[in-house]
């Protein structure tokens, strides 16, 4: 968390947006100013903008396209996006769209990002068919890097089956993520999961554990 700019990428369904929201909340514990930007231009449903009120109530600024959550499908960025780079006193979390098309957005800011430095976290859910093992994770990661023209600095094991996730599931996902780390040289930064699933893993994984509170629910049982 030493850099000012934290980029969260990964496949949709990895838990990327939940992780980004939780990460912004974590940053708020140590930073006076935190911004989160919803840069998702590919997924029209379930996005950071859906929890804008909650984040703003906690003092986190939310940058999102005015079309997010509306009935229009326009791959637009927020008009005030350059605030991310102008206000150097604020920590920043970028929630990026869930595939290589979504990551294209980052290429636009490559110069600013490289000049200032960044942390780019690639969130992995090994229970998603297209990122189920080290080879498929790396294939996806390389596509996102090529589209964004940026480099991943850390892996996040966010392996989950939503509310059904158990500690065994997280350990199973961790094997795939550790193999990805070994093959790529990119370190494992966090192991994220709902608190129930992280229980009993402290001894094994220590401070890498990152408990997640779920915010993007529907308001009723499904």
């Amino acid at each position, binding site marked *: 968390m030493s850099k000012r700019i934290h980029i969260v990428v990964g496949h*949709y*369904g990895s838990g990327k947006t939940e992780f980004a929201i939780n990460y912004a909340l974590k940053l708020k514990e140590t930073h006076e100013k935190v911004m989160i930007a919803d840069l998702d231009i*590919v*997924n*029209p*449903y*379930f996005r950071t903008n859906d929890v804008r009120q909650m984040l703003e109530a906690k003092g986190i600024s939310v940058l999102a396209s005015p079309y997010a959550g*509306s*009935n*229009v*499908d326009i791959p637009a960025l927020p008009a005030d996006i350059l605030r991310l780079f102008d206000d150097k006193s604020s920590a920043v979390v970028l929630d990026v769209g869930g*595939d290589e098309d979504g990551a294209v957005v980052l290429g636009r800011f490559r110069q600013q990002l490289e000049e200032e430095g960044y942390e780019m976290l690639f969130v992995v*859910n090994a*229970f*998603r*068919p*297209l990122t*189920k093992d080290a080879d498929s994770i790396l294939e996806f990661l390389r596509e996102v890097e090529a589209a964004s023209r940026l480099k991943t600095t850390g892996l996040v094991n966010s392996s*989950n*089956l*939503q509310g*059904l996730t158990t500690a065994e599931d997280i350990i199973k996902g961790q094997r795939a993520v550790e193999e990805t780390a070994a093959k790529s040289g990119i370190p494992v930064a966090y192991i994220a999961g709902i608190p129930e699933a992280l229980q009993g893993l402290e001894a094994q994984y220590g401070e890498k554990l990152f408990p997640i509170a779920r915010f993007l629910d529907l*308001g*009723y*049982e*499904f």
Partner: protein
Amino acid sequence: MAEKVLVKGNEALAEAAILSGCRHYFGYPITPQTEIAAYMAKRMPKIGGVFLQAESEVAAANMVFGAAGAGARALTSSSSPGISLKAEALSYIAGCDLPCVVVNIVRAGPGLGGIQPAQSDYFQATKGHGHGDYQMIVLAPSSVQEVIHLTADAFDLADLYRMPVMIIGDGMLGQMMEPVEFDLGKRREIPPKTWATTGTEMKREHNIINSLIMNPDDLEACVRERYKRYDYIKEHEAMAEEYLMDDADFMITAYGTTARIAKNAIAELRKQGIKAGLVRPITLWPFPEKIYQKYTDKVSAILSVEMSMGQMVDDVKLAVGGKVPVHFYGRTGGNVPYPDEIIQSVLKITGGDK
């Protein structure tokens, strides 16, 4: 097999199609079904299949027409405005007695409408869709797991009855993620496709695929023959889920994700002493009329809940033939009904509202 994975409805549909032997996908992107195309674009080249993004929905549906004629298991998918564009080709496919699967992940309409979920294409799906006397079998899953079963069954039904089968889901079902197992369930026996244009090898007569029939009497005979098949399907393939109907004196009816929201309302209504149950059509065509008819003496009223201005409610009224009052509650424009709204509607009908 049977390992749990986490997938979106759209991805589940694409993978289930591949597992069902589909190797030909023709489509054009449109929210909220684009993940079907995106998934096919990644998977098909790896398994020797065809993913083709056509220049339009019209072209994509006609490519399905061609592939189906050659005996391939072909799939196209879209969302509401794109489905309107596919109507012409689907009419030709039905007129040629060819099997195919078409997916509509419904968004709000009419016109461009909006990208949020809706069920306002019910009439379009069940009452003809394109021009001419024809039907499509229409399957309406309500969970991501059911998307998998019904996708597999859609390909079987299409081949068995040689007709287009539509899978209809609202945008929510396409976008939501659930843990699932890729278990296709029970499969059907499919006769060999002796009618397909696969080359005669000089061993048989040419197979001709055509929907132009010059003589009115011949065309009438052809359509009547087809309707005999439709009658058989009505008799044998109608499906519905009956939920807490054993002791119910009030019926809520809904399909797709709306049915799952209705279950929340039913739990609360039962706490308040109202014995509500749910009938959830799984086949929208054939409409499961007989299941409704079982309850005409048992329930005091029926409430149809839809993400539309009231479309399926007409079929419910036809099914019960005036024996039970049929009411309607709906949201439209991309809005989803909440359990509270359904509860209030029921209380209004039963006289328990404040």
